[in-house]
């Protein structure tokens, strides 16, 4: 497993304090499209190893973080840079589409 599990407890440390940009997959077990996105996120974790930290956050079990960042739709992929959410991608999309979003943020140094 190359991807990480984020929680209300470790979010500050793992995401907000991370020196690398962080991609967070907000998901829940009862969400069909989340199951489509899950394996894509695992591939993204491999593709961006060393460049972006990638992990998942279960919105059922971690409601503080979810509401703090205004998650109202899942799956939502949120990219954090220097502790700030800089990009949100909502809904099931293809890997290429997610990559485009991530690359845009990485390019804008």
């Amino acid at each position, binding site marked *: 497993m190359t991807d990480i599990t984020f929680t209300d407890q470790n979010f500050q440390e793992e995401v907000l304090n991370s020196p690398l940009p962080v991609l967070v997959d907000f998901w*829940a077990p*009862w*969400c*069909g*499209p*989340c*199951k*489509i996105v899950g394996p894509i996120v695992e591939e993204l974790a491999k593709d961006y190893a060393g460049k972006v930290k990638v992990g998942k956050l279960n*919105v*059922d079990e971690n409601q503080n973080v*979810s509401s703090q960042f*205004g*998650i*109202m*739709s*899942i*799956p*939502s992929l949120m990219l954090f840079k220097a502790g700030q959410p800089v990009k*949100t991608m*909502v*809904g*099931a*999309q*293809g*890997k*290429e*589409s997610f990559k485009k979003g991530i690359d845009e943020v990485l390019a804008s140094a």
Partner: protein
Amino acid sequence: MYDVIIIGSGPAGLTAAIYTTRADLKTLVIAGNRWGGQLQLTSVVENFPGFPEGIEGPKLMENMRKQAEHHGAEIIEKDFESGEFAKSPFTLKTTDGKTFESRSVIVASGADAMWLNVPGEKEKIGRGVSSCATCDAAFFRNKNVVVVGGGDSAMEEALVLSRVANKIYLVHRRDSFRASEIMQKRVRENEKIEILFNSAITEIFGEMKVEKVSLTNLVTNENSEMPVDGIFVAIGHRPNTSAFTGIDVDEKGYIKVYDHNKTNIDGVFVAGDVHDREYRQAITASGFGCAAALEAERWLMTKKSE
């Protein structure tokens, strides 16, 4: 070279794949980035025979996929981009630039949910605007929401939301629903759901998230504003046919059917919501998928003997 390429991975596409693989035809399913079709966005499916207690939509699709794979279907999660249907074998291209050749094709690309196309909607998708109550209802605990639409999916969205939300306004353009009677009854008997007929949402307001909507009464033309936290859109579907150059479609964009499940192109067959504007059920899509597969099999046999 494939015997059959199936474009789409909803009930129509995957049922077709089960039949073509069992007929020993080399089969590729171009499943799309979001494989599994509309059932991936539903909760319990109660009207698919064989599951007396109902089955979760995503689970049903996972089962169908496993069944198709078990019989040897090759499934790729890429989007179909374009096809060369003017000469045989057909050449199909996916969005990652790969091309595939096949003797026959089954188009089962389905339909996608439509949005309202009103000001304020697009920028608030994921910020209170949704087309999947099953996915997003949990974020609207004790909140007030609007559901737009008059068919079974609108009823289902309203009912799913009623388990957690405080109040649901079910907004519909006409003065009656076209949903099935059992779904309408459940909605009418649900005290959290208020039905607003002859009404349309004309604008969605809010800074970071949905805060209120503007509602127009289509009979009196009166406008009112309603504070709400969420809007769930279930106003129907549009067939996914824009990429099929050379294949006949009707005035609404559905693929034109000749003789049950044939398109205007010899060797290209069609199944499911991409041509079916009448029934649009999981089980009818499966049925159409089965029929198209049998027809493709017959067609390939005639070609071989020629």
